[in-house]
Every structure is written in C-alpha cells, then in structure tokens.
C-alpha cells in the first residue's frame, strides 16, 4: 500500500471518529454546535472522500511501467489541500463572525483545488486493460 494511501486512509479514519463525536455533540444540550452541513461534510469529505481517493490511488490500473501510480506529488497535494480545506471550513463555521467569510472562501478554494487535483491525478489511470 503506497504511503499516500496509508495517510489518506488514516486521515479518513480520524475524521470518521471526529464525525461521530460531533454527531454526538449535536445531540448534547448546551454543547457548542456546528451547523448540520458541516457535520455532513465531515462525514462525506473527511471520511468518505479521503477513503475513496486513497484506495483509488492504490487500486486503480497502473498509469505506466515507469510511474505506476502517476505523479505522486499530485496525490500528496490533493490530500493536503482537501484536509486543510476541511479544517478551515470547520474553523470558519465555528467562528461564524465577521471574519468567517474569508475562512470559508479559502476553505472552498482549497477543497475545490483538491478535488480537481485528484480528478486530474486519477483520470489517466481510469483505463481499459
């Protein structure tokens, strides 16, 4: 299993644990509550998307003999941007103040770039063999 896959899966597992804890907090009287969409994105971006990208990077058909998994720097960039973007989103949603808009724009840009990087990275490996 390549290193970036291991980091992606470990990160996904970490987000999964955080997500269910946040879900529990949402039911707790008086606990600081995140907006429900943030909880959903912890689940779908943090857990599911990290897991899918990590496993796809590992299991998809090889790109070439010389570079079986393509340019791994792209995978690392996608992993970093995706998780940094998700963290910034959570911070922005917690702040919910006048400065939260900038945090959220930065979070949105990071996650968008991350997804496009992963799509560009995986695309050449989606092939018939």
């Amino acid at each position, binding site marked *: 299993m390549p290193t970036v896959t291991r980091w992606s899966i470990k990160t996904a597992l970490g987000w999964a644990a955080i997500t269910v804890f946040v879900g529990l907090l949402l039911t707790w009287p008086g606990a600081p509550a995140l907006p429900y969409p943030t909880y959903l994105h912890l689940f779908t971006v943090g857990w599911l998307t990290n897991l899918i990208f990590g496993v796809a990077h590992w299991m998809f058909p090889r790109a070439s003999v010389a570079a079986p998994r393509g340019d791994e720097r792209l995978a690392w960039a996608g992993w970093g941007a995706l998780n940094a973007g998700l963290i910034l989103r959570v911070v922005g949603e917690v702040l919910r103040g006048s400065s939260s808009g900038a945090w959220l724009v930065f979070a949105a840009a990071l996650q*968008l770039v991350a997804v496009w990087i992963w799509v560009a990275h995986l695309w050449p490996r989606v092939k018939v063999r």
Partner: protein
Amino acid sequence: MPTLSAWTVRAALVWLALAALVGALILSRDALGLPALARLIPIHAEMMLVGWMMQFAFGVAHWILPRRAAGGGRGALAPVLFVVGALNFGVILVILGATREGRVLETLAAVAFVLQAIPRVRAAGWGATGQAGDLVRLKRRQELV
C-alpha cells in the same frame, strides 16, 4: 478495468469536479454577496451523492465483483448500459428541475443495478470457502510471487 466501468468512473469524476465547483460557490456565497446560491444545495447534493458516489460505486463494483458462475462473466451488457444512462440522465433531469422524473430514472437505475449485481455477490476465488483448499491456493500464490 472493463470499458463500461472506465466510462462510468470517468462520468463519476466529471460529476465530482462539477459538484465541487458548485459546492465551493455555495460555501463562498456570503463573501461573494450571493446568498441566493444556497438554493443550489439540493443540486450539489444530487450531483455528489448520485452522480459521483453512487455512480463511482456502481462502476467499480461492475469491475471488481466476482464474475458470474458457469462462465457468465460480468453478465449482459445491456442492463448495465441502461443503469449508466438512466443514472446520468436522472441527475441531469433533477438539476433541470424535473425532480420527480429524474428520481424515477435514478430509482430504475439503482434497482436494475441491484438485480444484475446480486448474482455476482457470491463466494468465489481465494477465501471463498474458508476451507483448507483456500489456504493451499494461498500458499501456491505466495510461491508464485
């Protein structure tokens, strides 16, 4: 990866790229001064959940599930072609506002996929039986490696 899976996964990746763009716009709506972008949330969810995740799962499942018994391979092509067409057309219809019609197509696609995939969800290959023969095959595989 079979041709149909390749096209299905590619379509799923396209939906993902588009849905991420819509999601980024929604998340930035206040800073952009466009609060009306919140109305795109159901479309964003449809693209992500059906166009990306469900379609990706179908494409990969068609590729990696055990093949049918008695040399049946991955089964007939037509039902899976219908699944892919109906799923994508369904998402497009939902985006265009024909929600009920789109959901009908998505439902038919999901039911068709389930029906054609169930025979392939079976014990096959290494580890199928958990009996001694499996372990012998594992040992042979390791020797080959």
